[in-house]
């Protein structure tokens, strides 16, 4: 293997002579890996943290027992069931103000063996855990930021537990029942172990109870899934951008080492060994770049995670922590992606190496010559790919199709860029009348092959930028509009029991401008599980209830009880359209409208209140939406609490909820902007390295122009202008690609993944800003090479004529 060793040393010597190129390759791979890893790390962390928290909230998916009429469970029911041997744990949950803050209290009984929160600091004196938890005064576990907001008036000891959702305090059920003033009722019961076989039948003990698998986790998963998918798409795009850089560097290194390889082969090194050596070299690069990338990715994730966590919490109520821990999953994924990236970047070069004729002469200009031939082939492939994506968009739906479509579209667009630019430049050469512009365009065209990879990277970065911004922006508009429309009432009151509803109804009627009953019922829709809710066709709903599509007499049909509205999920899932028949339980209705229902994983239909009461007389109406002047809300809820003993948790003021929803999108944008800037930065780096490489080879082209009297300063300025022009042209092409990308994400991927489609909104202002940013990036990338050319000593330029090239 001495030949191999010598060969490897010879191959590696290239990088010693071209440290810039080595750096480019490493940086490209490392950045690609870093962006991918960073996004994966964020996703993994967020998922892990709300998995942990969700398992506390829903007690690791244990079945939940509640009353089928939605009223709180009576404490004596719980005791009866426990005495009958049912392995249940009680839960009291509610919202109240303590310590100057509005918080959700979750009360658990440690003796009935539920899952309790995890304290951040191990209690060294573990023996006092139970007594301290139960108290008096008892303890509250809460996220550190929640605890930090509480003032000194909280009597309970506060225990930091980062896993918990913000605004949630977990304490002993005794403490919570006292603070929520719920001595005799429970919010729900959790089945802590499987039910033993000998139990007396539930129908004898508590016939009004229902047992259900908790769906909270499913909801969170459905909602946050959209966010994670988008982040992953972003990570993938960034990775592709990085890959272009690496591909460029590997290709260049291969071209420049042709002579060396031929020599090595001529000296008797077998082609196999040579390829093995090249592969070994690449593995080395992949390892170094992977390490760098994972480290960088960690830094990116650590910087972005607090914002992501805040977004997830605010947007979806998904509890996510803002701290990052190393997880083997994304570290492994990082290295795998570095390896994969290296392989993809080098595949072409390695196959070419296999076919390298020993006696072929070194052809430094072969690259450009071949590339004109290649351009045609590339354009053909690009058009094929774009046609494929078009066909998929036309024919297919579903998640897998969506991703294939994305890939084909982006690759096609990237491949199409150089032929398009080449054609545009060729046209410009023809159109130019004076010699200098003619030279400028021709020279730009000459440089295009060397720059095309960097420009492709820039195109992808810009397209990703536009695509993701458009998607997030559309998401924000759709979601906030929807929130405004759906949460039209100022207050939502849950009276808890039918008796309380009877008692409170006159109070509500006199206090509110409009009282809108709210009732949901789990049932079967076209023989599939689903939910139905009743909507009174009152003016408030008519004016604001969002409908994606509706027949002209939709509201009249709803009021008459002949028609139903269905949510978008049901519309897609069962391909129900307006005018179709939908069977709710055993009654047929005509579909009169389709409404957006973002984030709801289940099929749902909506019928008129009268029809609902006729069809489901056994379901009591105990929840109401109230329209009233916003200024009256506080006094009214205080009155309900003090005079009628309604727990604070059962009175919801929507204005606060909305405000926090709006604030959250600002953070989402902050994340998007940060990722956008990083991706653009990578693209700029690709341009810089390409230009640097080209600047060393451009003496033969620049020297004659200089000899004809053009000043070096002028040449440098022209270099800058060229970069800016190419970037601008790329940006212009990136806009439609980005919009297509956004469309695929919103209309194909989202529907496939979550069953709802977001209306797309375009933001032309962003495009101008982005184009400017792209030009700036290109100028920044070109500054150093241009300066280098402009300050080239005349003697070096003179040498251009003596050189045999």
């Amino acid at each position, binding site marked *: 293997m001495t030949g191999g060793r010598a060969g490897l040393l010879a191959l590696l010597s290239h990088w010693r002579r071209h440290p810039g190129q080595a750096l480019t390759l490493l940086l490209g791979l490392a950045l690609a890996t870093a962006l991918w890893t960073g996004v994966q790390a964020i996703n993994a962390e967020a998922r892990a943290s709300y998995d942990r928290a969700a398992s506390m909230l829903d007690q690791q998916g244990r079945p939940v027992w509640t009353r089928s009429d939605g009223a709180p469970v009576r404490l004596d029911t719980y005791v009866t069931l426990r005495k009958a*041997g049912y392995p249940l744990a009680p839960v009291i949950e509610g919202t109240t103000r303590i310590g100057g803050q509005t918080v959700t209290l979750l009360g658990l009984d440690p*003796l009935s063996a539920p899952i309790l929160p995890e304290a951040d600091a191990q209690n060294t004196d*573990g023996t*006092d*855990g*139970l007594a301290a*938890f*139960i108290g008096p005064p008892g303890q509250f576990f809460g996220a550190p930021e929640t605890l930090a907001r509480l003032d000194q008036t909280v009597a309970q000891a506060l225990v930091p537990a980062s896993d918990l959702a913000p605004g949630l305090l977990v304490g002993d059920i005794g403490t919570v029942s006292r603070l929520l003033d719920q*001595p*005799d009722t429970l919010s729900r019961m959790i089945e802590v172990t499987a039910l033993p076989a000998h139990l007396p039948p539930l129908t004898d003990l508590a016939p009004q109870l229902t047992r259900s698998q908790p769906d909270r986790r499913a909801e969170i998963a459905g909602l946050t899934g959209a966010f994670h998918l988008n982040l992953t798409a972003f990570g993938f795009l960034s990775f592709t951008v990085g890959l272009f850089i690496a591909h460029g560097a590997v290709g260049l290194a291969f071209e420049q080492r042709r002579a060396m390889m031929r020599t090595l082969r001529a000296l008797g090194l077998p082609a196999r060994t040579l390829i093995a050596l090249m592969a070994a070299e690449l593995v080395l690069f992949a390892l170094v770049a992977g390490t760098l990338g994972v480290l960088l990715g960690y830094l990116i994730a650590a910087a972005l995670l607090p914002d992501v966590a805040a977004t997830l919490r605010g947007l979806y109520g998904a509890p996510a922590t803002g701290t990052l821990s190393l997880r083997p999953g994304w570290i492994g994924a990082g290295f795998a992606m570095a390896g994969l990236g290296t392989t993809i970047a080098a595949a072409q070069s390695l196959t070419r190496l296999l076919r390298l004729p020993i006696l072929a002469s070194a052809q430094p200009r072969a690259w450009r010559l071949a590339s004109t031939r290649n351009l045609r082939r590339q354009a053909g492939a690009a058009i094929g790919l774009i046609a494929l994506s078009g066909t998929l968009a036309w024919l297919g739906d579903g998640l897998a199709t969506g991703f294939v479509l994305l890939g084909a579209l982006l690759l096609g667009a990237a491949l199409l860029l150089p032929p398009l630019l080449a054609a545009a430049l060729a046209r410009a050469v023809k159109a130019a009348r004076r010699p200098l512009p003619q030279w400028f365009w021709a020279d730009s065209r000459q440089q295009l092959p060397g720059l095309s990879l960097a420009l492709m990277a820039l195109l992808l970065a810009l397209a990703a930028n536009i695509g993701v911004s458009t998607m997030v922006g559309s998401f924000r508009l759709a979601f906030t509009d929807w929130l405004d429309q759906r949460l039209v009432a100022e207050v939502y009151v849950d009276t808890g029991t039918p008796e309380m509803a009877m008692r409170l109804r006159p109070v509500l009627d006199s206090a509110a401008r409009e009282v809108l009953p709210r009732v949901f019922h789990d049932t079967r829709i076209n023989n599939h599980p689903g939910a139905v809710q009743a909507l009174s066709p009152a003016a408030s709903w008519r004016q604001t209830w969002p409908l994606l599509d509706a027949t002209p007499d939709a509201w009249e049909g709803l009021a008459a009880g002949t028609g139903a509205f269905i949510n978008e999920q049901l519309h897609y899932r069962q391909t129900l359209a307006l005018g179709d028949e939908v069977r709710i339980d055993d009654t047929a209705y005509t579909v009169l409208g389709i409404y957006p229902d973002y984030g709801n994983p289940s099929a749902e239909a909506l019928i008129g209140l009268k029809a609902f009461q006729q069809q489901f007389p056994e379901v009591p109406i105990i929840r109401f939406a109230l329209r009233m002047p916003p200024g009256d809300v506080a006094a009214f809820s205080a009155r309900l609490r003090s005079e009628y003993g309604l727990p604070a948790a059962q009175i919801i003021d929507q204005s606060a909820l909305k405000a926090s929803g709006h604030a959250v999108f600002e953070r989402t944008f902050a994340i998007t902007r940060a990722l956008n800037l990083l991706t653009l930065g990578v693209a700029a780096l690709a341009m810089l390295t390409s230009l640097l490489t080209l600047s060393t080879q451009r003496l033969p082209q620049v020297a004659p122009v200089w000899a004809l009297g053009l000043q070096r300063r002028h040449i440098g300025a022209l270099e800058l202008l060229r970069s800016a022009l190419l970037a601008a042209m790329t940006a212009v092409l990136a806009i439609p690609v980005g919009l297509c990308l956004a469309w695929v994400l919103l209309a194909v991927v989202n529907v496939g993944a979550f069953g709802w489609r977001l209306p797309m909104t375009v933001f032309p202002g962003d495009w101008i800003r982005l184009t400017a940013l792209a030009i700036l990036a290109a100028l920044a990338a070109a500054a150093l090479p241009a300066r280098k050319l402009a300050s080239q000593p005349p003697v070096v330029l003179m040498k251009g004529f003596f050189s045999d090239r």
Partner: protein
Amino acid sequence: MAKILTALPQAIRALVCACLTLVPHALPATAQGFAGMGSDADGFQLPAPGRAFSFPQDHGAHPGFRIEWWYVTANLEDAESRAFGAQWTLFRASLSPDPGEGWTSSQIWFAHAGLTDASRHFTAQRFARGGIGQAGVMAQPFHAWINDWAMIGRDNSAEALDNLQIQARGADFAYDLALAAEGPLVTHGEGGYSVKSPRGQASYYYSQPHYHVTGMLDLPEGPVAVTGTAWLDREWSSQPLAPSQTGWDWFSLHLEDDTKLMVYRLRDAEAADFVPGTHILPDGTAQHIPDGAITLTPEGTAQVAGREIPVRWRIQWPDKGYDLHTAPLNPQSWMDTNVPYWEGPVTVQGSHSGKGYLEMTGYE
């Protein structure tokens, strides 16, 4: 989840431990009480000598004291003379002297059940909150319960504990036993004031050792009808053992001469062991046996749950000519509860023969 999850069982374990050994680790350290003082530094009541029991009230709970238990052990036999042992224990612990109500009650309850034969030992435990009716004890008519386990006074007998039904169920066993008292209640120590250490720690302690038992065991292979004898212990206190007292070895023996013997050894790491007892004559009269009269000597050990446990004992009471040797029905009678201990039926040979129960705590 894991951290507090492990911390809490530890805490429960500490409370169980508190009941078993009278050392409430779970609670703030108390000032050493001494006889005659009404309450300790934390406000709990303390046992005092000379207090007469008042029944049936004293069969119920004493929430002003930190800890209390209702403890039944039964030696049973089926029609083919196969021996079984059953244990049913309800513990009460008070987290604060303020009783509270509803969910804010300071009372917590837990219970252990064991069922032993020559080759198997089944264990189960229950936990419950006080104040909401999930567990508790009513004195008259007698009713002690926790979740689906119960000890119920079957009729309104003059003496509430005379006729009891006890039920417990674990994952793989259950039993339902009817207990009928054939003799009077018995007090230990000085009229029920039972001193636990020469330094003054004490509890209130009485028993009903005279039960005849009939009932059904539910074993994995099917139901088994049994008869036998049972012993009920009632004890409550607020005081810890002396810190150096590490555990105890406790015997309740039904001997063939119709006498019964209760004797225990409180092991002390720094001082001589403390070994008091009670001798119960056939007519039900009880005689306190002061420390030093009886000697308990381990005679053989077994490897149980990874530790060496003295399962065979010699009990010598030279004053009365007793020289007994005990052997376990099942040396592996390990109560694998939050705080583990050894508790199982034993047979007695030597100067007298008989059977009974042995409980050994503190073998960590």
